[in-house]
């Protein structure tokens, strides 16, 4: 195989992983934008989504379409439930309390999953078999194409939702200034819940795409995925939709390239090194707004 086709193959892999990171990063970014909470549990919502897909396909032998819908719906409901049960009582609490709660929720989900489903990996049957796309001398897997397209479409829809609809306007207002938004008659609680629902639905889509790329579910699969997606969100600029997309692709490509040069054991280290460099050089990321210090 020629060098070019290897590189091209890695780039495709990177784009596929990157678009999943981008979808997950969007969830982080939106939640962070609206209540400045780093939602550690976001990655674990993806893990639950994967288990839902596994149950509905491997145990109940349902139609893949139904399994996909169940996973997305399950993630959405779970996200809303977490928000209502764990984060809502802490509105107005110090941010460190919220953050610790989020870590607690993340650990709870992981350990409950481990108890219910066991620590070993469950193999998820493939959703659809998509023919590979052959481009000259190399084949691009159909999954990769579908993944990239799905995440691009999701992002376009999300941009439309945030920029053009009334709810999107409310979301932007709440993230700009919660108190002022409340004075303007915006229902803060329902807006935040809606944000969590959207973020978690994106996590559900991300979960399905992740499972089609790496078809297994483990209790800890969400932790590292979530952290890397968070790195992507920070890299692109937290709170920015195109930023999350750029960040996601950048992280995905960086990982693929590190693997391509044979250093795959250092992959996680490289991602965190990128995070550290970004935070030190440009803490707002590529497209983020600078934060002002309030006295």
């Amino acid at each position, binding site marked *: 195989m020629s060098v070019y086709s290897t590189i091209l193959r890695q780039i495709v892999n990177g784009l596929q992983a990157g678009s999943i990171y981008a979808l997950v990063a969007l969830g982080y970014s939106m939640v*962070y934008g609206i209540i*400045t*909470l*780093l939602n550690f549990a976001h990655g674990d919502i993806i893990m639950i989504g994967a288990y839902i897909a596994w149950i509905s396909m491997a145990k109940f032998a349902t139609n893949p379409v139904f399994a996909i819908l169940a996973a997305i719906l399950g993630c959405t409901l779970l996200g809303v439930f977490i928000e209502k049960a*764990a984060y809502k*009582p*802490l509105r107005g*609490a*110090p*941010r*460190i*309390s*919220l*953050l*610790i*709660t989020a*870590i*607690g*929720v*993340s*650990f*709870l989900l*992981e*350990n*409950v999953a*481990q*108890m219910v489903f066991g620590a070993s990996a469950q193999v998820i049957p493939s959703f659809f078999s998509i023919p590979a796309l052959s481009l000259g001398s190399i084949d691009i897997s159909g999954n990769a194409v579908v993944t990239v397209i799905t995440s691009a479409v999701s992002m376009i829809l999300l941009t439309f939702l945030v920029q053009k609809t009334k709810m999107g306007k409310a979301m932007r207002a709440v993230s700009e200034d919660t108190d002022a938004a409340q004075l303007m008659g915006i229902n803060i609680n329902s807006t935040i819940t809606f944000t969590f629902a959207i973020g978690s639905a994106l996590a559900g889509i991300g979960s399905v795409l992740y499972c089609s790329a790496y078809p297994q579910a483990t209790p800890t699969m969400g*932790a590292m995925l979530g*952290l890397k997606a*968070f*790195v992507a969100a*920070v890299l692109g600029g937290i709170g920015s939709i195109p930023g999350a997309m750029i960040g996601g692709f950048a992280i995905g490509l960086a990982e693929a390239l590190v693997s391509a040069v044979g250093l795959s*054991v*250092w992959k*996680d*280290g490289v991602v*965190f*090194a990128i*995070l*550290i460099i970004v*935070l*030190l050089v440009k*803490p707002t990321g590529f497209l983020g707004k600078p934060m002002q*210090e309030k*006295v």
Partner: protein
Amino acid sequence: MSQQYKKIPMPLRYLINALLFAAFLFGGTALIKGGAVSNYYTKVLMLLGINIILTVSLNISTGYLGQLPLGHAGFMAVGAYASAIFMTRVGLDASVAFPIGLLLGGVVAGLFGIMIGIPALRLKGDYLAIITLGFGEIIRVVLLNIDSVLGFKLTYGAASLKSIPKTTTFFNTFLCVGIVCFLIHTMMKSRHGRAILSIRENEIAADACGIHVTYYKVLGFAASAFFAGVAGSLYAGYLGILNPSSFGFMKSIEILVMVVLGGMGSMVGSVLAATVLTAVPEMLRAFSEYRMIVYSLLLIMVMIFKPSGLMGMYDFSLSHILEKIINWKPGRKKSAGKAGEENG
């Protein structure tokens, strides 16, 4: 105040505490020697001591400094590996090598604390949490893979660093616990400690009052890392075998749970929480698979219902209680006010 409120003079206070502590140390050792405490319980006690050091050390940066570092296990790992490599490589007698190894573990971890603290502490809140998490993970990945890069056997990566002399005993563990608690206590009562507390209360105001915020943040962070390194060295001598996977994110969270449960900013809370959370899982071995679920539920519950933790910021002082007793007269309300409560 018109009434004479008798106070215990300062040297006497230290003497009482030191005597009680020495009685505990030697009494405990005698009991173990005499066979009154089984081998298993001695092990649990040693683990408890190590956990207490870890918890009070994380309490410096979480409770007193008000930051949320998530890479505490990384510092522990650095200390553990530094002292383990020293003890296995240098052919000194264990009784000489152990204290040096202990100090070395602390110093190396402290240096890492400074190295990581200087860039990390420029950031706040969630960013600080995530960057320390990143550093913690990088330390783990490096320990796991560095042998293949350097080409010689140093950490043995996933194969574990084995045959470390098992030098940790009940006596030296709790001697370290005592020294660490004393050092942290005196540090927090000094002007440096008050500067650190003022940063927690309001960073901008502290800065405006002329406190060198970055310096004190790094100082607190490095102290926290130093003591974590000491705990790591004890851990290396306790287990006799080290594997990078035992210093993951999970371990950092476990320590954090202890700090949060005890009350951020309370040393006695940290000690109590570490005791409870080490002892209870040992007693409930049968339910060990639920341990992490209980931990995570505890974390959420404490944050929602009692964010200040079990002890809040209360710190226990034996002398104050003794003073209350010697000043207590029946039939009269104490006018001395709340003597037992101290901040920090």
